[in-house]
């Protein structure tokens, strides 16, 4: 069993967990998520790009009170991937499966991008 490294990276894990805590179809504004997680604009943008490329999140630009805003939401594919990831964590910790081998260093910062949405 291998964990999804696109989610397992700590910052992306927090982003995915935060979006998964909201009801399906709920969008959160970029600066709100940034402030909630205590990230910088650049750091959040970088990780959002990776998650968007993986098909896990949807990014929508809109004007609110004549100002450009960016809204983010988990896609159904991303929500399923996150739930699968969490179930795998629980299964691994319960001893049902052997722990996966250490990932190459690049994987934890997101260089391991496999596949995408169906």
């Amino acid at each position, binding site marked *: 069993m291998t964990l999804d490294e696109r989610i397992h990276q700590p910052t992306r894990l927090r982003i995915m967990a935060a979006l998964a805590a909201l009801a399906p179809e709920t969008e959160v*504004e970029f600066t709100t998520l940034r402030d909630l997680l205590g990230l910088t604009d650049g750091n959040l943008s970088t990780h959002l790009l990776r998650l968007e490329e993986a098909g896990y999140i949807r990014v929508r630009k809109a004007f609110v009170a004549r100002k450009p805003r960016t809204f983010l939401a988990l896609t159904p594919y991303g929500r399923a991937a996150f739930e699968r990831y969490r179930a795998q964590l629980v299964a691994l910790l319960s001893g049902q499966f052997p722990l996966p081998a250490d990932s190459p260093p690049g994987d934890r910062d997101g260089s391991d991008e496999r596949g995408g949405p169906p």
Partner: protein
Amino acid sequence: MHQPELEEALTTIARTQQAVRRAVLRWTLSPSLAAWGLVWLVGFPASLLLAGDALTLLWIGLVALGLAVSFGTQFLTARRLRSPQGRRHGLSWAVASGYLGLWASLLFPRDPELASFVLVTAIMAGYVLYGIWITPFMAILGLFVTAVAVVGHLAGPAPYALLVGLLGGSALIAGGLRVWWSSRDDAR
């Protein structure tokens, strides 16, 4: 990959999700609870001191304040979060409030204290339902204020106004502050 790393990941998920849910409660609930608590804290005891137009004007002003804070809160929340469920929740509260206002306006000329009791306990029924679906804290708050209102109603108009105003209003304010303080910066 080691067990502590996996445990840390699970902890991160739990901590982050709790922080997000608390933040949403803070944005949506906290200011409204505190504002309506203040309305009750001032309005109900004032019913014992004022009468006629002065009391009516005071209540109009207080209710306008409560509504302004509630709608303002929803407006600001909508700039942060957008969801079909949120719109339906807001519409449901608006419909329920409209019906409550209708019933209260019909009951009030006949029995002001009963009209107030029906209004207060109906709102608390909404809190309890909110607690069942969203956060148990609201159910506890709703049941507490309902108990206060029932005791006051049985004791008579003056104790009712004092109990609901001082105890019920303070409970709403305390509830709003609790939601606010419990969610500060805990996702970071």
